[in-house]
C-alpha cells in the first residue's frame, strides 16, 4: 500500500485567555505510521488530540486532513452510560450487530457480563468495553487519549498488538500516553 497523507498539523498553537498552552507544533502523519504524543501533566496532550479530532479550534495554525477521513476515537472519558446494561451500551455504539463481538467479548472475559449494569463493573472492565469500538470499527485514523490507563498487563499487550497490526494494515495512529508502551511509534514530545 502506498503512502498517503492522513493528517497534517501546521504550526499549531493554543491559548486560553491569552495564556499559552503550546505553540508551534507541526507534524504530518501518513498511513502505516504511528505517533506517540508525550508530555507532562497539563502540557496539552488531550487538547492536541481534540484539535486533531476537530472539536477545538487552534488559536493559530491549521489542521489539514485527507478528504473523507474516518476517525475512530476514544478520549479519557469512556462515552458509556453507567445506568445502562453492557448490552445497551454496545447497542448505543452500534457494536452489537457485529460478527466479531462475541469473539472479542470472550477474549476479554466479558461474555457473562452482558446484562450487568455498567456502573457495577470495575474501572478496568469498563475501559475494556469502551475499547471494543477501537477493535471493531474500521477507520483511517485512530485517535486515542490515554488508552492504557486502568488496564491490566495482559490487556495492555492485546491492545498494543492490535494497534500494531492496524498500523501495518494501513491505518494511522495517534495516541497519548505517559507510560512506555509496546507500540512501535515515533515519539513526539510536547514539553
Amino acid at each position: 500500500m502506498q503512502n498517503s497523507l492522513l493528517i497534517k498539523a501546521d504550526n499549531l498553537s493554543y491559548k486560553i485567555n491569552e495564556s499559552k498552552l503550546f505553540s508551534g507544533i507541526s507534524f504530518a502523519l501518513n498511513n502505516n505510521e504511528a505517533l506517540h504524543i508525550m508530555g507532562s501533566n497539563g502540557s496539552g496532550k488531550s487538547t492536541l488530540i481534540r484539535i486533531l479530532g476537530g472539536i477545538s479550534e487552534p488559536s493559530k495554525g491549521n489542521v489539514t486532513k485527507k478528504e473523507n477521513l474516518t476517525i475512530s476515537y476514544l478520549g479519557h472519558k469512556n462515552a458509556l452510560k453507567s445506568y445502562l446494561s453492557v448490552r445497551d451500551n454496545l447497542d448505543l455504539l452500534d457494536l452489537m450487530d457485529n460478527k466479531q463481538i462475541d469473539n472479542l467479548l470472550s477474549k476479554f472475559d466479558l461474555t457473562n457480563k452482558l446484562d450487568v449494569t455498567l456502573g457495577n463493573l470495575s474501572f478496568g472492565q469498563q475501559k475494556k468495553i469502551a475499547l471494543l469500538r477501537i477493535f471493531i470499527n474500521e477507520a483511517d485514523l485512530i485517535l486515542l487519549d490515554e488508552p492504557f490507563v486502568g488496564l491490566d498487563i495482559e490487556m495492555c499487550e492485546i491492545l498494543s498488538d492490535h494497534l500494531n497490526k492496524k498500523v501495518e494494515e494501513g491505518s494511522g495512529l495517534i495516541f497519548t500516553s505517559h507510560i512506555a508502551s509496546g507500540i512501535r511509534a515515533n515519539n513526539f514530545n510536547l514539553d
Partner: protein
Amino acid sequence: MLREILIIVIKKFIHQFASPKTYFYQVNRIYPWLLYISLAIYLTAIVWGLFFTPKDFVQGNSYRIIYFHVPASFIAQSLYAAMSISSLVYLVWKVKLAAYLSRSIAPVGATITFIALVSGSIWGIPTWGTWWEWDARITSTLILFIMYLGLISLHNSFNNFDKADKLFAYLSIIGFVQIPIIKKSVDWWSSLHQPASITLTEKPAIDAAMLYPLFMAMIGFSGLIACLVILSSKVQIYKREKTKNWIKNYV
C-alpha cells in the same frame, strides 16, 4: 474575481480598524468632546422640559417625566439591538472588538432598563393610579431587563472568555426576537400604556412645544449613554488584553 478582492479588502479594513488598540486611541480622542457636548444638550433639554414647556391638558405636570422616561426606554431597546448586531459581527467575522463591545453594553443596558422601569412606575402612580400593571409593554421591558441580567450572569459564569463570548453572542441574538415584540406589543394587545409618542412614519402625537425638548433629551441622553458604553468597553479591554504589550506601553 472583483468580489473576492473586495471581500479581502473589507476584511483587511475590519481587522485593521477593529483592533482594540486603534479603537482605544480613537475613543480616547473623542470621549471628552462627546461627554461635554451631550451633557450640555441633555441638561438644556431637561431644564427646558421641566420649566418652560406648557403643562399637559390631561396629565397635568406629571407628564414632565416623559423627558426622562422616553429617552431611557428608547435607549434600553436600542442598546439591545446594538448588542445583538455586534454579537452577530463577532460570530460572523470573528472580530474580537465586537465581542468586547457587546459584553460592555450589557451592564449599561441593564442599568438603563432598570431606571426606565422605575421611572415608568413612578409615572404610573399619578396618571394611572397604579405603579405596576401586567400589561404587555411593561412586562416586555421587564423581560428585557431579565434578559440583560441573564446575559451578564452567563458571561460571568465562564472562566474561558472565548467560550463565554460565543455563548453570549448566541443568546443575545436569540433574545433579539424580543425587540419587535416589545415594539409592537402596545399595538397588538390593548393596554393601559399609551402608544409610542414618536414614530418615524407618522406625525407625532404630541405638541411641538413638548416635542423639541424631548428630541433634544433623546440626543443628549444617547450621547451620555455612548460615553458610558465607551467607559465600559475600556474596562473590558483592560481586563481582557492585559497581557498584551501595547496596553502595557500605554499605561
